[in-house]
């Protein structure tokens, strides 16, 4: 069994990034800009934070690529679900 298969990432740097992004997210909702810009900014920052956690804390960056594909499979389901439900939210 290999105990240390890769060099340990700089966990504290990841922590500071997550903290800064969280503060920015809270700040964004009080900034008087158009709603769509707020939505795009918030979604982009949330996805960045989730990606940081998966890549560095869950070590996905250092795993085999197939494992990353398994990890991403739920997003395919979510996209399908959105596409299938979208006709329902437009008035007929």
């Amino acid at each position, binding site marked *: 069994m290999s105990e240390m298969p890769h060099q340990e990432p700089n966990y504290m740097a990841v922590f500071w990034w997550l903290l800064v992004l969280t503060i920015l997210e809270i700040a964004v909702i009080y900034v008087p800009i158009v709603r769509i810009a707020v939505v795009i900014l918030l979604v982009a920052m949330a996805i960045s934070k989730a990606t940081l956690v998966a890549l560095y804390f869950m070590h996905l960056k250092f795993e085999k690529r197939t494992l990353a594909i398994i990890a991403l499979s739920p997003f395919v389901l*979510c996209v399908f679900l959105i596409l299938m439900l979208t006709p329902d939210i437009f008035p007929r």
Partner: protein
Amino acid sequence: MSEAAAVMHIGAEPQETPLTPESSGKLGMWLFLAGDAMSFGCLIVGYGILRHASKDWPVPSHILGINLTAFMTFLLIVSSVWMVLSLSAIQKGDKARFKKFLGLVILGGLTFLGCQAYEWTHLITEVLPEHHLSFSKDLFATTFFVLTGFHGMHVTGGVIYNSCILNAVSRGRYEAKHVEIAGLYWHFVDLVWILIFTFVYLL
């Protein structure tokens, strides 16, 4: 085969998987998390569709307390850092440091649950009646409690899981690879909260 050898054979790891050569349990946890992410994904997409289709959805930040949940978000992020530090400690064989950090992770999880219990009580008894909203009649309240409740159950499970790991490693029955698998679960709980915090509280 001698009795000792037979015991060794039973206790040995099954054939390693090509995806996670260091332990098959890790692949198992990833598969479980992918399934679990599908559950959370369906709930979040369902929430988004319902909200988009509603004409009078309240602004979440007017009803839900952002300060407390910002603190809860901070708590989960810090506990994720403690989790990687405890894994790093046990990989280097430093059991005392491992116990300290995993203990902090468990404490962080319990504090999170305490905050959530306080938040729910406050919402149900004071805030929701003030806004003429109710848990059973309004989609805003229902989707909120389903999403945060499902996540809260995961945190509860994580606290129990981490406590078992702390106990088993302290007794010498588990080692670093088991801590890594528990860590994957805990980071996933953190990752989902990051999404819930954005989609349910901030957006």
